[in-house]
């Protein structure tokens, strides 16, 4: 198992390396001169030269990349063109909001999704199964930003239960987390359902039933434990999607998270911020998947390289 964990960790290194190259090259992929893109057509030639010099864009590509990488490892992600603040500072201030949303969304999705999946599997092809599968179909088809607006309309504007903008208390997080997590509920419900159906047909379940084990023990302790493995993988993969997708939710609920930072940066062509946020989100995503993989190699000894 230790061997699996080490190989898995090593396998992540080239991916992170390639991700950093792509993020570095982003500025160079832009059609036209990156500095003019950043400063605008009417910028003074001196200002253009100064920015080129400051960003090191006049050096050869491999030297630019090396210093880009060294700076990242030192925790220096450059300076925002718009706010003139260090990008790392901006991200530090905003990252936790997006992290709370993504973790909350993943929790909502896993609890509700797994519960729905279990009920569906137990009641296979009966009313509850069909009903829950319609709900999960709706959940995967509804865009999160549309759901967010409906939630605001019902729970903020009409019922007044939850605030619709900002992040001042836990009540502010309820609607955004729900809006973000819902799309994954359906996915996890379907995954749990089919994994549960697979395990419920196994011999050891029949044995457990034959020995007279109570049904909730059969379902929760025998079947669910084994059905959780594919579900865990999906959860790891969804987490990254939620982290990136929180940009939409942050826009609707006016939450100052990293997603909004990224969108604002794209709209104002603030390339150091774009690069840093894209890098940050993808590295988090790769690391979470690494952790999930390692976790279930511990949970399930059958998983090997």
């Amino acid at each position, binding site marked *: 198992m230790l061997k699996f964990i080490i190989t898995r960790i090593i396998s992540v290194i*080239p*991916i992170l390396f*390639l*991700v950093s190259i*792509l993020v570095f090259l*982003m500025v160079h*992929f*832009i*059609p036209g001169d990156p500095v003019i893109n950043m400063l605008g057509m009417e910028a003074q030639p001196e200002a253009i030269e100064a920015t080129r010099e400051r960003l090191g864009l006049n050096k050869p590509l491999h030297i630019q990349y090396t210093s880009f990488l060294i700076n990242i490892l030192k925790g220096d992600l450059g300076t925002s063109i718009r706010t003139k603040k260090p990008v790392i500072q901006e991200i530090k201030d905003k990252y936790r909001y997006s992290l709370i949303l993504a973790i909350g969304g993943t929790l909502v999705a896993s609890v509700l999704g797994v519960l729905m999946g279990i009920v569906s599997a137990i009641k*296979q*092809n009966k009313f509850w199964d069909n009903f829950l599968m319609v709900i999960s*179909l*709706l959940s*995967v*088809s*509804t*865009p*999160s*930003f*549309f759901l967010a*607006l*409906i939630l*605001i*309309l019902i729970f903020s*504007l009409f019922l007044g239960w939850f605030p619709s903008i900002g992040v001042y208390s836990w009540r502010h997080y309820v609607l955004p987390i729900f809006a973000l997590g819902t799309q994954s509920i359906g996915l996890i419900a*379907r995954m749990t*359902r*089919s994994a549960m*159906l697979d395990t419920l047909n196994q011999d050891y379940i029949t044995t457990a039933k034959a020995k007279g084990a109570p049904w909730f023990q059969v379902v929760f302790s025998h079947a669910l434990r084994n059905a959780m493995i594919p579900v865990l993988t999906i959860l790891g*993969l969804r987490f*990254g*999607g939620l*982290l*990136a*997708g929180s*940009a*939409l939710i942050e*826009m*609707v609920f006016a939450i100052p998270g990293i997603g909004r930072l*990224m*969108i604002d*940066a*794209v*709209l104002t062509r603030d*390339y150091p911020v*774009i690069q840093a946020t*894209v890098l940050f*989100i*993808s590295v988090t*995503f*790769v690391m979470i998947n690494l952790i999930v993989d390692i976790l279930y190699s511990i949970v399930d000894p059958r998983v090997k390289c």
Partner: protein
Amino acid sequence: MRQSVLKRFMKRKIAVLGAVIIVLFVFMALVGPYLCAYDPLDIDVLNKYQSSSREHLLGTDNLGRDTLTRLVYGARITFIISVTSVFIGSLIGMIFGVIAGYFGGKTDAVIMRATDVLLAFPGLLLAIAIVAILGTGIINTIIAIAIFSIPYLARIVRGSVLTIRNSEYIHAAKVIGASHLRTIIFHIVPNSLSQVIVNTTLNLGTAILTSSALSFLGLGVQPPDPEWGAMLSKAREVMRSTPIAALAPGIAITLVVMGFSLMGDGLRDALDPRSRND
């Protein structure tokens, strides 16, 4: 064989429902614009933010443009973006997938690492990053979503090629002297086509969600073009007074995505009965 696929598809009522939804929306996109009484870009500031009425069934938006007309024209844009991008992305993904699976070895390793890297940018992030490079607009949205769908399809096709690569009929083709290209085009591709069709259909739903999300963020289709995500974005300012302006495009996106999802599942069951989940 073909008839039995259609028969199996038609047996699943819910898959047929999905197909009916899509057909209706495609009809709306093709014919709808000729039936509209208004122009989607005609501004009528005196009548902005109207609720639904006899003149404007779904009300009007912030500039007094008829929401129903914009919804109908928006269907065109939605289908143009999703179908073109998924077609291009699937084609490129399929080519890479076939090459990786068929030749194996180093070629496979290089292509698979490339997909790994693309997949390291989760969900919307890759599309946003591409738009950050290329800029906004319909064409760039299409490119972003095409690139976005390449790695998924490449992996799926590679998987299916790996399972058929060692089949006897492939060996037979090689033994009688078929070239690589001939083997790929006449034997490998037709046999992995069902996977491609199913996943392309499912990808269409994802493409619509992504393109509307980009437009909602202001990074996709630009005003004044009518796009469902952009319409939603504008309408959220008047959620309380004229909720219909947001509900109409939101429900349209949901229905089309649902339609593609139901159709994709139905096609999967019809083309490959072994993979059924229930």
